[in-house]
């Protein structure tokens, strides 16, 4: 990788956030983290990440709304959205893809799996 991809990791659970941050950094990403919807929107305003790892259930703004925001913004038209959620119902997953997300990964996930998938997405 010539230039490190910028990745934004969003999750309201501090431990999941901790592990995802470590994983992404370890794999050469330029990592930003956000603990809720509001923080995410602020970061998106300032930065143009290549990928966003997005939790869905958060106390303030939910992940679907954030995905919608990204997909409708000209600035983030190249940004890829990967949902990482505990919501595992078929309808929830479908909704994620319908909103334009590139990937939907259900929790709990395997580290290897998640890294491979995201790498494949960016190649």
């Amino acid at each position, binding site marked *: 990788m010539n230039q490190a991809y910028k990745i934004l990791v969003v999750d*309201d*659970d501090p*431990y*999941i956030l*901790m*592990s*995802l941050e*470590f*994983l992404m950094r*370890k794999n050469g990403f330029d990592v930003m983290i956000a603990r809720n919807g509001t923080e995410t929107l602020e970061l998106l305003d300032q930065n143009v990440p290549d990928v966003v790892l997005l939790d*869905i*259930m*958060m*106390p303030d703004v*939910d*992940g*679907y709304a954030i995905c919608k925001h990204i997909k409708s913004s000209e600035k983030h038209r190249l940004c890829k959205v990967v949902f990482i959620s*505990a*919501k*595992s*119902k078929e309808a*929830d997953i479908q909704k994620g893809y319908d909103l334009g997300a590139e990937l939907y990964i*259900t*929790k*709990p*996930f*395997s*580290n*290897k799996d998640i890294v491979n998938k995201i790498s494949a997405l960016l190649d």
Partner: protein
Amino acid sequence: MSNALIIICSLLYLLLLFGVAYFAENRLKKGKSIINNAYVYALSMCVYCTAWTYYGSVGRATTNGISFLTIYIGPTIMAALFFPVLRKIIRITKAQRINSIADFVSTRYGKNASLAAVVSIFCIIGVLPYIALQLKAIAISFDILTNNTAARHNFISDNTLYFSVFLAIFIIIFGTRSVDATEKHEGLVAAVAFESVIKLVAFLVAGIFVTYGIFDGFDDIFYKASQVEEFKKLFTLEGENAHAGWFSGILLSMMAVLFLPRQFQVGVIENVSEEHLKKAVWLFPLYLFVINIFVIPIAFGGKLIFYNMSVDADTYVLALPLHFNKPILSMLVFIGGFSAAASMIIVETIALSTMVSNNLVMPVLFRQDNFKNSIDKSIRKTILTVRRLSIILILLFAYLYDQYVAQYFSLVSIGLISFAGVAQFAPAIIGGIYWKTASKNGALASIIIGFIIWFYTLIIPSIAHAHIINDSIIQNGPFNIAWLKPNALFGLEGFDSITHALFWSMFFNCCAYFVFSVYSKQSPQEVYQAEIFVDIDRYNTPESNSIWRGTAYMPDLYSLLENFLGKERATNLIQNYAHRHKISIDHNAKADPRIVSFSEKILAGVIGSASARIMVSSVTKEEELSLNEVFKILHESQQMIELNKELRKKSIELTKATEQLKEANLQLKTMDELKDEFLYTVTHELRTPLTSIRSLTEIVHDNPDLETEEREKFLAAVVKEAERLSHLITKVLNLEKYESGKQKLNLTSFDIITLVKELYTSYSLVANDKKIELSFQKPNSMLLVHADKDLIQQVVVNLLSNALKFTPENGQIQIIITELQNDVQICIMDNGKGIAAELHELIFDKFFQARNQTIKKPEGTGLGLAICKRIIEMHNGKIWVESEIEKGSRFTFTIPNFEPSKNLIAHNESSL
């Protein structure tokens, strides 16, 4: 009053009748039947009140006092019997497509043609004078109105003739529309009901005029009448056998109200729905009562006014308004009487003409091979023509009778003689619908013998009185045989002639009916009809089997029906029937026996059952059925009906069961959905700690070269999340335990204040760390509760930790314990961010998280409050929240307090 004026008024009234009838038929075409109405039905039954009663009741009251009432008491009693008797007759009539009383009798006794003919002939003999009486009433009232006391001279100047002609036209127009005599005569019945209203109104107006116009109310009339010696006998029953007279009068009129051809016509044939009987049962007697209120006042009034004047009491109703010079009122009374006469003539003529054509003329024609073989489409015209001619002939004969014969008889007696005539059908009809053994021979004998006695005891004396025959027959009996004297048969003396005649005719009638029925053998056809008539409710279904056996071909049947009904109607009827009963019709093959039976029934409606039988057998090769076969068929059809009933009941039950199953299924589904939802919530909650545990351990595993500090951080997180996980699992299991009722309460008595105080102390430290002010308010005394200490502690802990979670730094949390009358109330209040009102109930719901999936609740499990609620409910307490966004929340729960004093008292009382 001038002749012309009266004629114009009468004509206008007749035109009005045409209008009413025409209007009714038009409405029917638009699908709105006027006669399909209980009130119209009851009013049409009031055709019972003829001109004879309209004028004659006053006449009878003047001479015989209140005995005139007998002919109204009878029908009133009969009305009470409408349900067992009339309803049964109506059901049979509809099921068998019967079109007259003669048809009814003949159908019951094996569709016997001679029986139909006999009944028809006797009806004509018995009723024709009665029709003549109506014409006479019109003529007399006309004469009184015009003050024409001279005898009528010739046909040309005789208005009765013109009225007869008009009525004939009216009846032909509205009475012979359809060849099917079972079809309702919409216009006729509407007109008759209308006339019932007119005659009632007219009579009441006349009564009110006499009572309150001429006199000063009922009291005045009765007082003045009581002053006159000869009136006194009118108030009482006179003569040694007056009671017998009453009895016979009531009995006669009971039978007349059912079996007079016109009553049978309006009450049975024209009945649209047996539901209408429910109203007729009280409306008809009410009408009779109302129309009689003023009879006595008019009778007394007339007698007082016309004292020593030669005014016929039969004419008081009309003579009184005339005497007091009230032309409009007189005209109204005349129209009322005219109505009474006209409606009777109309219905009676229709009924008689059907009998004449179907039971006298057509059977004779159908027996002629020449005629039978030449039947084609013109047959319908022929039938209608016969019927129209019958109408004209009946009216003509009535007119001639009135002109040449009636003058020899007293007016009053004609009505009752008629009643006594039709009463001869009573045993055959009533017996026929209740007694299966009654046979054709019994019925024939009963009717013929009854009529002979009737004729001998009532008609012969009348003729003798009129000196048409030698009146020595009355004095000495025929051939000087004293015990055969018509007025004192077998030496029976002392009764009035009607009672005497009724007694002997009914005596011989019933005896003959009984003896001949018991000692004669019924034909299979009779057995079948008897069975169906008596047990109509068991057979009154379209499934009724046919008794017919033999070979018939569809083309023959079709052409037969087409001739009588027209191609379109015949095809429709047959196809509908076949469709209803799932019979396939091969148009060129042998006919299904049921189709043959059905065809016969349809034809019966047109030409009567006896003729229909002749016609159908002319196109079929019939095999005689044995009695055994008849019984077999009856048995089978009964079984089929029972089976059908059973099946219908079963299918209703099945439908019900299916619905119940559906409902249960739905409930299960909802429960399943709830269960799924709960499971989903739980697994969903488990996923979060599991995710970090898995991910972090993988990191530690995959990266042996981790810095010690980082490894420690990750492992500590894993431990924490594992704790969270096990905590969560415990809660889920607990909730399941409480919900399923597996958890037994470990009840002890303890001081709730002590318990809460301990918790307060330990949480104060945590609160201090968060810079939250935690306070505790409590009563000073102890507060005993009888509860599961551990569970109550769990509730308080849950509420306290929630409060701590949602209260920001520098916030306040208060714990307040209060003692209420029966409960202890514990309240935990914070000034945190609060809960939206719509969530106040939902947060106690264990599925809450599942339903609000995208916005995460920070409580963690989402089960804590559900568990609290369950625990408090198990203690018969309540838990709720009051909260406002940004202002804080106040969770409160109550548990019943423990009152040892109460228990003590109870204990003492029981030991006394």
